[in-house]
């Protein structure tokens, strides 16, 4: 649900419109919004959900889609990867705020 409602606008804004110069947010304002403690907490929660859900779906993509039938290995790689990615994400997001 978080991915469904937030990612289209986030991808358009930060992945397409700003890099191509269609929109130019004021840096001081953007920085204030992004490093606000409320934003930081919501981002950490949101990103964890996105990472875990994405890994879960990737697991089934590998298992059913590509028919890689090493169930334990695929599961361990996907969920283990999600834990590692979440830890890295939390460190990077907190470093942005501090």
């Amino acid at each position, binding site marked *: 649900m978080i991915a469904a*409602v937030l990612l289209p606008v*986030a991808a358009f804004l930060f*992945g*397409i419109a700003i890099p191509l110069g269609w929109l130019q947010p004021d840096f001081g304002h953007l920085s204030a919004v992004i490093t606000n403690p409320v934003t930081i907490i919501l981002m950490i929660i949101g990103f964890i959900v996105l990472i875990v859900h994405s890994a879960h779906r*990737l697991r089934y*993509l590998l298992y059913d889609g590509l028919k890689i039938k090493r169930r334990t290995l695929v599961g361990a790689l996907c969920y283990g990867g999600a834990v590692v990615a979440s830890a890295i994400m939390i460190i990077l997001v907190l470093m942005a705020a501090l």
Partner: protein
Amino acid sequence: MSVQTPGRSRPRAYRRPVSVWWWLRKPTYLLFVLRELSSIFIAWLVAFLVIMVFSVGRGADSYRGFMDWAGQAWVVVINVLAFAFAALHTVTWFLLTPKAMALRVRGRAVPARAVVTGEYVVLAIVTVLVLWLVLR
């Protein structure tokens, strides 16, 4: 008394082998796999956004450097694809929610169209809110 027959394993249920290309057989299968494929692009978007947030935290120069990098053709192409997959993920999710969750208000089923419309309203509100927050 059970007799172990040498060289024979326990009988197993027969499973018809399925081709690795099963998802090309029907448009609905293809759509399903494309939808699941969106998880890869969503993972990319998370990484992209986290690095963007990190660069903002390091100051204006770092942010400008990140946006210059993100302005390269190949990064924009990946992001356009990621946007398309995110949109596919959103639309297909909205289509399936009334099937996955049967909402009832005062004992009466909420019509599927009302649920889907409500979701698009939430999407519109969140989109406008994010644009307003960032561009104000």
